[in-house]
């Protein structure tokens, strides 16, 4: 696992990801803490899709994939999954840290919140962690898949960005509603007890699981 960390988390990637979250927490204004999740979800999705696009394509660019074709498929796939896991865990930690940075830099209000139940600060934070984990997983795996399919990191990033633009919009919200990939961002803040937005996250999980299942086949076929 340490080697996977060294391979998929080089210093420059760590640096730009941390820089991105720090800048975001400084420039994206929030008034109430309930807005932090909304402020973070879509930008973190962009970070995940760019961050994970080179998970396997770095093997293609460096020609290591030509040697790895000779290795057992199981080992190769396990290594790719481990790299995705390492990157996703890092991004999740960063997303959690980013949540804290918003508090640190902007000291948002917590007005209108209860001390317990779904309105408590801790509960909102835990819901955010669950939602952002699914978001990161989805965009990370999708960009890895597209990049592998087309053997090009930029197509992975570009394809995902297109989907990001379509779904992270009022049009996406209008047509997809609670099934939108960004359902957490577009949920109703007034009615925080409505769990309808979970549908969108279930869609994300289903697509991510399918993508993860198809990934070995694509790596084998596309090398």
């Amino acid at each position, binding site marked *: 696992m340490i080697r996977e960390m060294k391979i998929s988390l080089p210093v420059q990637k760590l640096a730009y990801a941390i820089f991105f979250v720090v800048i975001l927490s400084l420039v994206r204004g929030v008034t109430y803490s309930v807005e932090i999740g909304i402020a973070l979800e879509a930008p973190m999705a962009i970070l995940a899709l760019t961050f994970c696009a080179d998970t396997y394509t770095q093997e293609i660019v460096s020609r290591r994939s030509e040697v790895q074709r*000779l*290795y057992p498929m199981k080992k190769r796939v396990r290594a790719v999954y481990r790299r995705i896991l390492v990157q996703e865990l890092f991004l999740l930690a960063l997303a959690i840290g980013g949540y804290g940075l918003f508090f640190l830099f902007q000291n948002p209000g917590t007005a209108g919140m209860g001390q317990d139940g779904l309105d408590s600060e801790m509960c909102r934070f835990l819901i955010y962690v669950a939602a952002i984990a699914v978001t990161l997983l989805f965009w990370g795996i999708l960009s890895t898949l597209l990049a592998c399919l087309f053997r090009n990191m930029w197509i992975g990033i570009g394809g995902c960005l297109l989907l990001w633009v379509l779904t992270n919009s009022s049009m996406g919200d209008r047509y997809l509603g609670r099934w939108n990939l960004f359902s957490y961002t577009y949920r109703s803040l007034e009615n925080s007890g409505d769990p309808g937005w979970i549908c969108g996250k279930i869609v994300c999980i289903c697509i991510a699981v399918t993508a993860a299942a198809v990934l070995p086949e694509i790596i084998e076929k596309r090398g």
Partner: protein
Amino acid sequence: MGIRIEDLTVTFKNKVAAIDHADLEIPKGIFGLLGENGAGKTTLMRVLTTVLSPTGGTVTLDGIPYREGNYDKIRRKIGYLPQEIDLYPGLSVQECLEYMGNLSGLSKQTARERIDYYLEKTSLSAHRRKKMRQLSGGMKRRVGLVQALLNEPEFLIVDEPTTGLDPEERIRIRNLLVDFSEGRTVLFSTHVVEDLAATCNQLAVMKKGKFLYAGSMRELLEQAEGHIWTCKAKDETTARELERKYHVSSKQYRGSELQIRLISELHPEIVCSPCEATLEDAYIYIANKK
């Protein structure tokens, strides 16, 4: 058994035939593949390592035909060093080789033992803690070769392994390949003629996707015998005149005169004497024979 190639054709999407109806048999031992840049050597190696599927023809390795269902069996028998490979820059030499050994299915213990052995053989032991990005081009090439040897494959395919190496390193790598070839097949592709002269008995010459020659080194030299000439030119103008008319394999100042080696099917129309062919002469003779 070795590798048998029959009527092999590889045509790219742009209709360029990188390999054009080629036939070849590669026996056990070290086998050289010689050819100019773009001759099709790398394409051939990519086919043999299953990176590329041929457009036509058949290839067998130890009697196993190259087809989808047999690829796993074939891949287990092969070690490969591509022409260009950039091994993990953020890992140390030891980590990189252990990682690749592990991916290839070796146990940790076996991988470590073999890494120690081959790092020693390639004089890299002292550099095992260095990051890959800190190594010189020649060192990276040697680490690349070690990764190809780690599995101790029955068929080792190396694409220009001596590129970027200094003379001592080249000799070391050549000797390592010769030692390794005992009881195995090593396909050694290069355009450095002297590397082949020092290692192989058997070789093939490729040009524009075709094999111009395949056989023993001795027979290749015999074919060129009687077509290599040496002569003297008084000045550079005369030398240039000769270069226009004939293939010149070497040109050297000897005092005030230029000594020139010419390759010509017939006796050149100047004062010259026949001389013994080197592999380089023979290669140029074969490559330019009409």
